[in-house]
């Protein structure tokens, strides 16, 4: 990054700035002429004699001459305007391009920050620096050179013009400039200092108020409210004083500016008048000078303002680059433009006398020495402060040694490119970060290094503009929408081979069951899976048959048009079908006119309003203390955190004025809630038998009277057809799993699994499951599932060395062991390092390393070490 803003501007926009300057200079003669023309018009055309005069060889009478000159003036106005427009647009574009470049540079640097830096600087700070704080710099960069040039040149042109008319007047025009240039910045500085004082004072006031709120109890107990008031009054007085001071000074500056601006005309009228009377100056010239002088104030003001902005921008840029050059940044050559071929790793991972020390002097690794062969499995044991994690992280270059050497396959890791490490090694720990996308995208994440597939010609043409702009601003020209997932690097050249490899990994990580479950919950585009609909209908019949067993029958409540289903929402009960599109979406039912008419007809409207109030009260009570955006809102609440305050207001209005008098908007809000209730799940006591009767009536009314226009917005449940809008499970089950039975989900799940196996639908469901979106930060997955996905992500790239730092600790112990065994089997002959939380599992690994206080105290073959007297023996017998 360039050390100063000016250098940055010169380096990347020199040519554009020069172009801008040249165009600006070219515009000046036109400006000068437009100032001169009024004088000529008045002196030669209006007050002149000796007609006809000639212009460019044409002879013109007085009025004609006048008109020609006037039109010429108009033309000049247009030309000057045109120049201004072009210059502004050009300048703006240049500024925006430089802003884009600067943001890209900052972002690229973030990608090279040493990982500990992210603990020191908060996410919010970094975000605000790249987004908000950089913004004003864009505008400034455009103007940095051109504005002073333009305004300065305009200023000089105008002053020059005045000088040419009469030097005395010229000097009069600029006589007071030095005064302004000296005094005004000084006054402004004082105002700025006072501004900082004001901010401090307001902060103190806030603290006072905060104390009052937290200590309210004390104030009441000890009757110290008078004391508190006096203190606050004092701070308010301080703030008032400061503000008044600022106010006075600000207006003084304004007054001074205006006064100076008016003194000069005084000089013009007086000196200029005398000159005209004495005949040294023409009348027209004086008029032109006055007009020109009026034009001076704008450029002058701009220049003064620009001076301030320049100072601010410079400081801001300096602050930015301070924040963006932390010590220990990854060198560019180790992240960009990786080598074409990257050889496989072989040999050993060696750690020699490595010290890793943090800022406080704590050594997480204190002269650690280890040799780990890359063709066998090694377990690392030790307490949580023993340095076992840091040792593992060294192998993936996530922790960098402060002293000592780390070698991977004989190569010094400090010289290795990220591509070499990324392709041949994989690291997973418990943090399990999952990106917002599908499961498939997350598992394949680690295979995306550069765009793989080329685009077709049409697409490439469309992108040509974007690519050109990217190159002009130093941005990456790679297309993020192209296919970046590269299986060929793994030696997988056919679709079948790829599928088999992926399936293998899914089995090893224990994800197949989860994916099948997700597949069951997703809905299918039947056109893409011919025969699937029929298969599922057979499954449905099969399942319905099994419901004749009363033990199973109580686990499922099937969809029956004649019965109320207490395991479905009220809304779904009325619809008795799946909504298609937004018309009958559950959250919109409260605003849907047809639904409202059905409610009225079934005598449910008043009921729903009252229930809505009760539900709103309940939601507010349960969720009002949670911080906004808390995950419980999405998981359990009917009202999202953003809407909670609205509902509080609505309830207040209901309390004050009664339910009948509130506005339609409020009513709509309340009505939206009862539709979301599931009677057996939400035991709020709001759906008694009377209501259920009416709801059944509403259901009948809904389907019987459905207008043709709305028919396509709902797919009714029909036992003989596949419901394309519903999930696969709902289609097979054709009912809802009963809420009150603990084993219901498990047992029904078992039955569904049986049916799926019988009909060979397993693979299809797994594929569907892969396309399920995981939500922000993987919110829709459990921690265990997220961890499994991250392990799959690591395994799928077939690394030569896999480093695992207790990555599956959210799984129950049995599942962990099964997965561990599967991974160990898969990595026979390759390098596997596993940091174990449970020492007894070390016997599954060929080698073991034991760490204490940042040092390796024992390492070697497990079988050989497991003898009385060794540390391993101690740990295993504990």
């Amino acid at each position, binding site marked *: 990054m360039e050390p100063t803003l000016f250098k940055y501007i010169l380096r990347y926009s020199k040519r554009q700035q020069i172009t801008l300057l040249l165009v600006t200079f070219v515009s000046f003669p036109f400006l000068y002429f437009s100032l001169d023309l009024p004088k000529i018009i008045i002196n030669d055309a209006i007050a002149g004699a000796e007609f006809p005069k000639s212009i460019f060889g044409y002879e013109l009478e007085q009025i004609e001459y006048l008109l020609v000159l006037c039109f010429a003036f108009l033309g000049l106005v247009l030309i000057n305007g045109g120049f201004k427009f072009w210059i502004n647009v050009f300048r703006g574009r240049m500024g925006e391009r430089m802003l884009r470049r600067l943001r890209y540079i900052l972002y690229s640097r973030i990608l090279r920050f040493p990982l500990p830096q992210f603990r020191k600087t908060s996410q919010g700070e970094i975000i605000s620096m790249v987004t908000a704080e950089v913004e004003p710099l864009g505008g400034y960069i455009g103007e940095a050179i051109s504005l002073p040039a333009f305004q300065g040149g305009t200023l000089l042109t105008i002053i020059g013009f005045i000088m040419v008319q009469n030097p005395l007047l010229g000097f009069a025009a600029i006589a007071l400039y030095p005064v302004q240039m000296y005094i005004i910045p000084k006054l402004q500085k004082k105002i700025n200092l006072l501004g900082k004082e004001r901010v401090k004072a307001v902060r103190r006031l806030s603290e006072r108020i905060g104390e009052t709120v937290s200590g309210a109890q004390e104030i009441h107990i000890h009757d110290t409210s008078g004391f508190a008031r006096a203190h606050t009054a004092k701070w308010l007085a301080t703030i008032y004083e400061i503000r008044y001071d600022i106010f006075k000074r600000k207006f003084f500056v304004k007054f001074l500016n205006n006064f100076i601006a008016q003194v000069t005309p005084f000089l013009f009228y007086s000196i200029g008048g005398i000159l005209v009377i004495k005949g040294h100056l023409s009348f027209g010239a004086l008029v032109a000078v006055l007009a020109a002088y009026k034009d001076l104030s704008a450029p002058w003001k701009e220049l003064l303002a620009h001076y301030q902005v320049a100072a601010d921008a410079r400081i801001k840029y300096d602050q930015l680059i301070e924040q963006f050059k932390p010590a220990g940044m990854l060198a560019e050559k180790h992240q960009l433009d990786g080598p074409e071929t990257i050889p496989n790793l072989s040999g050993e991972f060696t750690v020699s006398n490595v010290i890793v020390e943090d800022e406080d002097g704590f050594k997480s690794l204190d002269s650690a020495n280890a040799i780990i062969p890359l063709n066998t499995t090694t377990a690392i044991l030790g307490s949580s402060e023993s340095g076992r994690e840091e040792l593992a992280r060294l192998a993936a270059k996530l922790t960098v040694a402060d002293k000592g050497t780390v070698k991977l396959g004989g190569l010094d890791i400090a010289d290795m490119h990220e591509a070499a490490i990324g392709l041949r090694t994989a690291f997973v720990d418990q943090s399990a970060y999952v990106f917002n996308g599908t499961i498939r995208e997350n598992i394949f994440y680690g295979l995306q290094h550069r765009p793989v597939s080329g685009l077709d010609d049409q697409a490439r043409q469309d992108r040509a503009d974007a690519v050109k702009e990217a190159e002009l601003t130093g941005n990456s020209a790679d297309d993020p929408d192209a296919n970046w997932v590269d299986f060929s690097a793994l030696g997988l050249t056919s679709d079948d081979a790829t599928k088999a490899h992926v399936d293998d990994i899914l089995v090893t990580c224990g994800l197949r069951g989860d994916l099948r479950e997700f597949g069951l919950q997703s809905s299918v585009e039947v056109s893409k899976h011919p025969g699937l609909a029929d298969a599922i209908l057979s499954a449905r019949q099969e399942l319905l048959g099994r419901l004749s067993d009363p033990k199973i029958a109580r686990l499922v409540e099937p969809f029956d048009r004649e019965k109320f289903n207490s395991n479905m929402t009220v809304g779904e009960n009325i619809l008795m079908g799946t909504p298609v599109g937004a018309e009958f979406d559950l959250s919109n039912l409260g605003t849907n006119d047809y639904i409202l008419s059905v409610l009225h007809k079934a005598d449910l409207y008043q009921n729903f309003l009252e229930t809505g109030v009760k539900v709103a009260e309940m939601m507010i009570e349960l*969720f009002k203390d949670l911080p906004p955006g808390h995950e*419980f809102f999405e998981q359990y609440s009917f009202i999202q955190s953003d809407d909670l305050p609205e509902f509080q207001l609505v309830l207040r209005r209901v309390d004050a004025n009664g339910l009948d008098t509130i506005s339609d908007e409020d009513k709509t809000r309340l009505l939206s809630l009862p539709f979301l209730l599931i009677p057996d799940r939400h*035991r709020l006591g709001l759906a008694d038998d009377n209501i259920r009767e009416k709801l059944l009536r509403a259901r009948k009314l809904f389907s019987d009277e459905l207008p043709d226009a709305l028919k396509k917005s709902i797919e009714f449940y029909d036992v003989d057809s596949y419901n394309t809008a519903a999930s696969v499970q709902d289609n097979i089950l054709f009912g809802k799993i009963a809420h009150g039975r*603990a084993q219901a989900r498990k047992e029904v799940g078992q039955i569904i699994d049986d049916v799926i196996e019988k009909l060979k639908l397993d693979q299809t469901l797994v594929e569907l499951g892969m396309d399920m979106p995981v939500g922000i930060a993987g919110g829709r997955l459990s921690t265990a599932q997220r961890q499994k996905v991250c392990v799959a992500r690591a395994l799928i790239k077939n690394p030569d060395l896999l480093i695992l730092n207790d990555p599956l600790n959210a799984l129950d*112990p049995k599942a962990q062991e099964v997965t561990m065994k599967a991974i160990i089997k898969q990595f026979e002959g390759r390098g596997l390092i596993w940091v174990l939380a449970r020492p007894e599992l070390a016997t599954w690994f060929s080698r073991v390393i034991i760490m204490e206080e940042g040092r390796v105290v024992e390492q070697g073959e497990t079988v050989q070490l497991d003898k009385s007297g060794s540390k391993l023996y101690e740990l295993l017998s504990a």
Partner: protein
Amino acid sequence: MDLEEAARVLKNISLFSKLEPSKLKLLAFASDQLIFDDGEVIFGTGDTADAAYFIESGKADVYIEIGEKRVKVNQLGAHDVFGEMALFLSTGRSASVIANGDLKVLKLDGNMFLKLVTENPDAALGVMIALSEKIVSTSENLVNST
């Protein structure tokens, strides 16, 4: 049992005593009400622990496996809480619980319980007190039985 009642009853249990009523209601609201028949297993030894249970009505027997035999060590009744310890450890269940007669329980989601406790320091204190009490009473039982 509606939410008001559930919150009131839960508050009397030392484990939940320091959670505010609104949080207790939230816990009850998010929890599933489950019915078990006589002899049905609520959970078995070694199972993954994902919830704590609160008995609304009925009885449940607690068994541990000693060698090949299954020994009944306790019987729980209405308003008892069980299964909460395993929420804090990542080991499986340390005992089995089986319904004795018709049993109605509230299954308190483990994830939510842990979140509520870690986000509300006062509640965490309540949990620590309750668990300490349990250790003390277990030790006393041990002393008394030897």
